[in-house]
């Protein structure tokens, strides 16, 4: 028993790996841009990996944001298979995360943004310790009812662009209720990434559930 415990203590600590998936245009990169300063403000040492579908646009956008040392942002090409690179064969992302940890030994949390995908996209547990799925109200309030694996199985469902709800005829309260119902009561959080609203609640959850700080 004590030998087992000692072996575990001897293992080097590794950074928590947090996946962010969701459909194209739902606000994944905007969420990353909001999470970076929010996590840094709480003293959390971070790095970022992006899986752009056909360009390095998301990686470049984060690198040029001025929010984080560009060397801490890695891009992994998905070979037109955004599902595969985070689920069936996450080896390239795992290697990229390992490499970031080697280069930045104090890193505590790595955000891993998936390429834009559909509602069936999910992250491998070999790749991430926790993953969230981002949808937005403008994509339609019926998305939770479609019960896609991304919506159902994510550790956290984020409904973004809540400010648009009245403009696209979405009953936000009902959408949130239905999302909570199909997820069996597991967390659903609302954000307006454009204005930074709802970000603190996500960081609170990451601190509590992933970093075990509170």
């Amino acid at each position: 028993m004590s030998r087992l415990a000692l072996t575990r203590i001897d293992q080097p600590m590794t950074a928590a790996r947090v996946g962010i998936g969701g459909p194209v245009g739902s606000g994944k990169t905007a969420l990353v841009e909001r999470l970076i300063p929010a996590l840094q403000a709480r003293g959390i040492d971070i790095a970022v990996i992006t899986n752009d579908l056909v360009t390095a646009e998301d990686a470049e956008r984060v690198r040029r944001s001025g929010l984080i040392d560009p060397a801490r942002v890695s891009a992994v090409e998905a070979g037109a298979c955004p599902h595969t690179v985070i689920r069936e064969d996450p080896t390239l992302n795992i290697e990229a995360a390992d490499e970031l940890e080697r280069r930045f030994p104090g890193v505590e949390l790595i955000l891993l943004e998936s390429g834009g995908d559909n509602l069936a996209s999910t992250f491998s547990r070999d790749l991430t310790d926790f993953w969230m799925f981002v949808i937005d109200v403008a994509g339609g309030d019926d998305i939770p009812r479609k019960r896609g694996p991304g919506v159902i199985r994510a550790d956290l469902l984020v409904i973004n662009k809540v400010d648009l709800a009245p403009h696209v005829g979405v009953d936000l309260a009902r959408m949130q209720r239905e999302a909570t119902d199909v997820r069996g009561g597991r967390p659903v959080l609302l954000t307006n990434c454009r204005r930074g609203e709802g970000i603190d609640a996500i960081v609170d959850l990451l601190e509590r559930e992933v970093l075990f700080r509170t």
Partner: protein
Amino acid sequence: MFDRGEALALLQLGDSAFPAGGFAFSWGIEGLAADGHLSGHDDLDGVIADHLAQRWATMDRILLRRAWRASDTDAIASVDRLAEATTPSAEMRDGSRRAGRALLGVWGKLAGPLSVAYRERVSADARLGHLPVVQAITGRDAGLGLDAAELVSGWTLITGLVSAAVRLGLIGHIDSQQSLARARALLADLLTETPDDDAMPSSFTPFIDIAVSRGPLRHVRMFTT
């Protein structure tokens, strides 16, 4: 004699679903198509033949065989450095290392003893981890014979090229099977000759090398190479 155990191992390790990141590498297919040098199955067959005869058989296969014979991790690292030194294209070197490190990472987690030992070595030296060298290491860990390890190496190259062509919309699913069959015959033919133990790695695939090297200049890009 037909060895069912080894045949099944080949099916597993040579499967495009084996999780070693192969789907993200087009090895020039994407670049050649973007530059107008590849637009259908005839062109694809030509590129595959170039890859196999002018690069894989004279370069990757030689490195794999050298790494196969290497007695320890120092000797393997020497072969790895030879791979680095004989690959002029920086993007080709980088792609080979990324693909090799991904494969090594999987076998490290599968607890292949040589893979575990060499992964430690690779993590401390950014120049190490080339794909054919790692294919030799993982083939040894998998208990394959050299012949079988060469088959896995050649076959995974072929399936990667054809799969990339399908995803780029250059060929359809039926054409892809015909290309695979033609490439399979060529690979078998190349393997009938055994290279000398002291053969040095060499390649002559200028169009492919240029296509891979131009990758970072392209704004729209789906593949690592």
